C-alpha cells in the first residue's frame, strides 16, 4: 500500500473564489464567526502583505487594509470542491477517500505501473491539481494516516518504505500530529515536543495518558494496525454551482466561471469514462429567477475545450436580462462515450476528426435545425422528390456503405410502403420511355412555384407531363417545359393544367 495525500490548506479561500484573475490581485479574505465577533479565517497573499492574518478580528483587518474585500466562509462550497477533487483523483486510483475537511487520500500503490512510477505519478498529480487553481501540499507514505500527517508538515514529502517512515514521523511536532487538541495540550504540559518522544514511551503508559483513540491514531500512522477508510464513490450525475458575490452583467466575466465548470465536468467525465450529450446551464438571477440554456450535442463528448467552446457560443446567444448571481451546470444524461474509430492509415484522418467539431460549432451558433443533408426521394412530383435529412456525424466510410436512395428514374426505385407500390408500378407500366423524359432536372428548385416574369425567348424542351399523387391528396398534374427567357436564363416552368395563369416557374437551370 502506498498512499498519497493532497491537502488543500487554502480550500476555504479557493472554494469561494470564482477563478477570476482580477480577484488574485486584490486583497481578499474569508471570514467566519457570529455577527458580533467576525474574524479572518484565511487571507490571500495580497491581504497578508498588509498584515491581515488568520484569527484577526474583522474590524482590525479593515483597519489594516481598508480595501479588503471579504466573503463568508462557505462549508458547502468547500465540501463540493473537495468532492470534485475526489472525483478527479478517482482517475488515478480506485481507492480514494476524503480525509477531514481539507484533504483527499488516494492509494497509488496499485496505479504505479500504469502511470510509470511514483515520481511520474506525483508529477502528474501536481500538474493537474495546479490547473484547477487550488493551493495544495502533497505527501506520500506507506500508510494513509502518515501521508495525511506528513502533508501538513511540508509539501513534497514522499516516503514509500516503512523503514524511514518511523524516523520521519518522529520529527513531526505535536501541533500537527493529527491528535486531538486536548491530547496535544496534555502532552505539551508533560514536556513532550514531537512524536519521537511519544514513540519512545511504553504503550501501557501512553494509553493511560492520552487514551486508546489517540494511541490507535499513532499505531495506524506507523502501520501497526490496519486502517479503515470510507471509500469515495463517484456520483452518476453532475451538478455544480458557482455563486458570485456580485451580479455579473458581462458575457466575458461569465466565461471564466463557465470555463471552470466545464473543466470540472470534463474531469468528472474522464473519471467516469463517460461522455455528455446534453447539459443545462442555469443562470441564477436575483429573487430566485433563472435563465436556462440547454446545450445539446449530436454525439457524446468529453473534451473540455470543445465543450467549453460550444457552451460559450450558446451562452453568448442569450441576452442577459438581469445580473447573474450564480451559474449552475447540470448534466443528468451521461451516456457512455464511444470514441470515433479512426483508421491509423486513413489519409483523410484530419477530416474525420474535425467534422464533428465543425458541426457542433455551426449548430451552436446557427441553431440545431440549420444543418441538413440532401436526399432524393422516389417520387415523381418535383417538390416531393427530395427531402432534408439529419446530418450524420458518422465517418464517411460508414455512410458510403449504407444504401443510398437514388432518384426516381424510370421507376427503378420502388417505394417501400405498400400503398405507394401500386401507383409506382402503374406509372412504370404506362410509360416506357420515361428515362429520357426524366433526364434533365434543374439545379435550383424554387421552394414554392411562382409566376414566371419576363418575356420568354423560346421553348427548349417539353412538355414533360408529371402526374402523380392521387393517393395522398396532393395530386399534381403538370406539363413541364424548359424555357429560355430574353435574358438568357433557362427556367423549368410549367403551365398548370387546369388554370390559365400562364407560365409558372419551378426551377432554374443554373
Amino acid at each position, binding site marked *: 500500500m502506498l498512499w498519497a495525500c493532497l491537502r488543500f490548506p487554502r480550500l476555504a479561500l479557493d472554494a469561494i473564489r470564482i477563478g477570476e484573475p482580477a480577484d488574485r490581485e486584490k486583497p481578499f479574505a474569508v471570514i467566519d464567526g457570529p455577527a458580533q465577533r467576525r474574524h479572518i479565517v484565511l487571507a490571500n497573499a495580497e491581504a497578508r502583505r498588509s498584515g491581515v492574518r488568520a484569527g484577526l478580528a474583522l474590524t482590525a483587518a479593515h483597519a489594516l487594509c481598508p480595501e479588503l474585500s471579504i466573503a463568508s466562509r462557505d462549508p458547502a462550497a468547500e465540501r463540493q470542491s473537495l468532492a470534485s477533487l475526489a472525483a478527479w483523483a478517482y482517475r488515478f486510483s480506485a481507492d480514494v477517500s476524503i480525509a477531514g475537511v481539507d484533504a483527499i487520500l488516494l492509494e497509488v500503490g496499485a496505479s504505479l505501473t500504469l502511470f510509470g512510477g511514483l515520481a511520474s505519478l506525483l508529477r502528474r498529480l501536481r500538474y493537474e491539481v495546479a490547473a484547477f487553481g487550488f493551493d495544495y501540499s502533497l505527501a506520500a507514505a506507506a500508510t494513509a494516516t502518515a501521508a495525511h500527517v506528513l502533508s501538513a508538515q511540508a509539501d513534497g514529502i514522499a516516503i514509500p518504505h516503512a523503514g524511514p517512515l518511523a524516523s520521519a514521523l518522529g520529527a513531526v511536532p505535536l501541533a500537527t500530529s493529527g491528535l486531538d487538541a486536548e491530547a496535544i495540550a496534555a502532552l505539551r504540559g508533560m514536556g513532550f515536543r514531537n512524536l519521537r518522544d511519544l514513540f519512545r514511551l511504553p504503550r501501557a503508559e501512553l494509553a493511560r495518558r492520552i487514551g486508546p483513540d489517540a494511541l490507535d491514531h499513532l499505531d495506524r500512522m506507523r502501520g501497526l494496525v490496519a486502517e479503515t477508510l470510507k471509500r469515495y464513490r463517484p456520483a452518476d450525475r453532475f451538478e455544480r454551482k458557482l455563486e458570485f458575490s456580485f451580479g455579473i452583467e458581462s458575457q466575458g466575466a461569465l466565461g471564466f466561471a463557465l470555463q471552470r465548470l466545464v473543466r470540472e465536468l470534463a474531469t468528472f467525465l474522464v473519471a467516469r469514462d463517460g461522455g455528455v450529450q446534453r447539459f443545462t446551464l442555469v443562470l441564477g438571477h436575483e429573487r430566485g429567477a433563472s435563465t436556462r440554456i440547454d446545450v445539446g450535442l449530436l454525439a457524446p463528448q468529453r473534451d473540455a475545450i470543445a465543450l467549453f467552446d460550444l457552451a460559450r457560443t450558446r451562452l453568448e446567444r442569450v441576452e442577459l436580462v438581469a445580473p447573474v448571481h450564480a451559474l449552475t451546470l447540470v448534466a443528468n444524461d451521461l451516456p457512455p462515450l464511444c470514441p470515433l474509430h479512426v483508421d491509423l492509415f486513413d489519409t483523410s484522418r484530419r477530416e474525420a476528426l474535425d467534422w464533428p467539431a*465543425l458541426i457542433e460549432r455551426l449548430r451552436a451558433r*446557427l441553431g440545431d435545425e440549420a444543418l*441538413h*443533408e440532401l436526399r*432524393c426521394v422516389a417520387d415523381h412530383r418535383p417538390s416531393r422528390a427530395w427531402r432534408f435529412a439529419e446530418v450524420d456525424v458518422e465517418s464517411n466510410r460508414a455512410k458510403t456503405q449504407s444504401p*443510398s436512395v437514388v432518384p426516381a428514374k424510370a421507376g427503378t426505385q420502388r417505394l417501400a410502403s405498400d400503398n405507394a407500390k401500386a401507383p409506382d408500378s402503374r406509372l412504370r407500366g404506362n410509360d416506357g420511355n420515361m428515362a429520357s423524359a426524366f433526364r434533365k432536372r434543374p439545379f435550383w428548385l424554387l421552394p414554392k412555384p411562382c409566376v414566371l416574369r419576363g418575356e420568354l425567348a423560346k421553348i427548349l424542351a417539353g412538355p414533360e407531363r408529371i402526374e402523380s399523387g392521387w393517393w395522398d391528396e396532393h395530386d399534381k398534374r403538370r406539363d413541364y417545359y424548359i424555357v429560355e427567357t430574353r435574358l438568357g436564363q433557362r427556367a423549368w416552368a410549367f403551365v398548370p393544367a387546369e388554370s390559365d395563369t400562364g407560365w409558372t416557374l419551378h426551377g432554374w437551370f443554373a
Partner: protein
Amino acid sequence: MFTSTAEAAASVADPSDFIQAPPIAKRTPAPPLIATRPPRNDEALAEVLRHPGIWRRGAAARPKIDVEPTGNASLDARLPGGGWPRGALSEILIENDGIGECSLLLPALAALTQAGRRVVFVAPPYIPYPPALADAGIDLAHVVHIDAADADKHWTAEQCLRAGCCGAVLSWMPRTDYRQLRRLQLAAETGAAIGFVFRPLGAARETSPAALRVQVSMAESGPRVEILKCRGRVGENSLAALLSA
C-alpha cells in the same frame, strides 16, 4: 607574376570557386587563361540555380497550383494550373440566376464527393435540387446544406473553409466587402478548401482578394466564361472561354 594573375582571373570567373573551392585546385598548374570549364562547373551552377531563392525569368516553370479540374477541357486549358484553385477563393460573377453558373461547378463537385470530400452549400438562394445533383454524379452523402441568416453567412462560410474538412464551400453573397472576402480567402488557404462565392456582376468593378474571378454571361451560342483575374499565368488566347452548353 603572370601565372598568378591568370589564376586570379580564372578564380573570379569561375563561379564554383565561390561555392566550393577545393584546396587542391590552387596547386594545379595554371590554366592557359580562361578557356574551357570543367564539367563540374555546370553542375555547381545548376545546383546554385536550384536554390529556391533564385528566380529566373523565362525558363522557370509555372508555379505549381493545386487545382481541381473543372471537367471542361476548354476552361481547364485557360485556367492557371488547369482547374479551380484549391486553398483559395474563386468568385463567380453573374448577372442573373439560371445561366449555367452552377452547372459549371458540377463536374468538380461530383469529383470531390466521389473522392469522399465534403461539399457545403452555405445559405443557397434556392434549393439545390437533389435529383439534379445526383444526376450529375454527386454523392449526396457528402453534401451538406446550411441555413444561415444574412448576418451569419460569412461566419459560417469562414468556419467551413477553415476547418479543413470540407472539399468545397459554396456561398452566395449579394452584399459583401473586401475585408470579409479577405477573411474567406485566408480561411480557404488555412483549410485547403475550394471556396466558391457567387456575386452579382456589378461587383466586377470592385477590387477583390479572391484568387480567381470569373464572369459568367449568356452569349448567342451558350454560357460564356470570362476570366477577370487569376493567380498565375492564363492559358493562351485566354480572356474569353466559351463553354459548350
